């Protein structure tokens, strides 16, 4: 598994969101769970109304953001948003919601094949052990998907980048 520290500029994402336990309606890594259905919903919107999304940064990249609040540890419920990056939020379709990904330093995991469905905390723990001067903010992370991701049915040929924010006190490292 490859990884890097990366300074990421603020990203404006617009898309669709879900709050709850996404796996209560379908197993993990299944297109039938709430995340799979969220992607299906957003993809259907994109296929019909992509022209309504203005100022899109890239046609190849899309994002999946995970935000955990206080309920997460108790119930396993959290927020998920899928979307695409835009350079401006004004005049965007009312059917979509937006999220501002903060500008900061991130730990980026480059996951290939079965690494994508493994416990990524194992990788994170190993990296943090080798880099004791940094720590990660576990309340939020996002995944970047591009042409290198071939779908869950071709997971062995796929690649995903996961961005985990470093805590602010550690931002001078890297």
């Amino acid at each position, binding site marked *: 598994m490859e990884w890097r520290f990366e300074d990421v500029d603020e990203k404006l994402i617009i898309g669709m969101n879900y709050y709850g*336990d996404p796996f*209560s309606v379908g197993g*993990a890594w299944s297109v039938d769970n709430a995340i799979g259905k969220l992607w299906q919903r957003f993809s259907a919107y994109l296929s019909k109304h992509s022209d309504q999304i203005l100022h899109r940064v890239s046609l190849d990249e899309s994002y999946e953001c995970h935000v955990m609040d206080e309920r997460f540890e108790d119930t396993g419920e959290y927020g998920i948003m899928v979307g695409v990056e835009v350079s401006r939020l004004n005049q965007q379709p009312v059917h979509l919601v937006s999220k501002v990904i903060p500008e900061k330093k991130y730990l980026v995991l480059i996951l290939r094949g079965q690494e994508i469905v493994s*416990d990524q905390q194992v990788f994170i723990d190993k990296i943090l052990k080798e880099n004791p001067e940094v720590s990660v903010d576990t309340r939020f992370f996002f995944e970047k998907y591009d042409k290198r991701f071939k779908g869950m049915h071709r997971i062995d040929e796929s690649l995903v980048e996961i961005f985990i924010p470093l805590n602010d006190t550690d931002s001078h490292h890297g």
Partner: protein
Amino acid sequence: MDNLLLLYQSIEYIESHLKEDITVKELSEVSRFSLYHFIRLFGSKTLFSPKDYMNRRKICEATKLLMTSEMSVLSIALEYGFNSPETFSRAFKRVHDISPMAYKTSNQSIVNLTEPLTLEYLSFIDRYGIIEPQPVTINDLNIYGFSILEDTFSHESMTRYTKHFNNDYVYMIQSPFKDQVLTCYGTEAMNDYFEIHMPDGKYAQFGPVSNYEALDHLSRYIKEVWLPRSGLKAVETEKQYFFISNEPQLGYFILLPLTF
């Protein structure tokens, strides 16, 4: 230790702390996964979310207590860690589609209970994943055979009795009867034994699975996972129709009569 065994430790932990208010974080620590990975893994290996499974297990045991004891709804709610009778009532209604008090006075038999997940059942789910049935229509089907009343259904008796038939397929219909299980074995071919009529209509055909044990697990999957998720209702929730091939390589099926 493989993922299934690690995950099973959280199932055992739930059983031993059923009357306590435990968090998903605690379960992830018992299984030695990160919280995030645990939630994903639990969902994929059990087809329940951890919180939903915990609630269903509590409701299962609370339902048994409600039906077999003189304890009040409040006492039972508190016994199983629900903060108030209202919280308990909402959780109960979500599972049984009826309030606890109405259930107690209705004389309904206990159905739709989530018993503890076993390692064998988890292995079955791991192997088959989400199983979708084939829709089939049955018109005026009479089964001729015999029935056996037993304390509990056993695979041994099934093996013994299905051997009586030389036809390609044997039907097996199970119904609870008092405290026993009435199992009817039969085929479509006419013979001297008594007749069972399978109601006309739409059936969901599940399978094939490869052995009797898997058939048990499939039956559980249908009741606990497929029916609640499909939003469909079985015509008779207590009766199960099994359609069993006498050719081992063809496997075993379950036919479930449905209202669409």
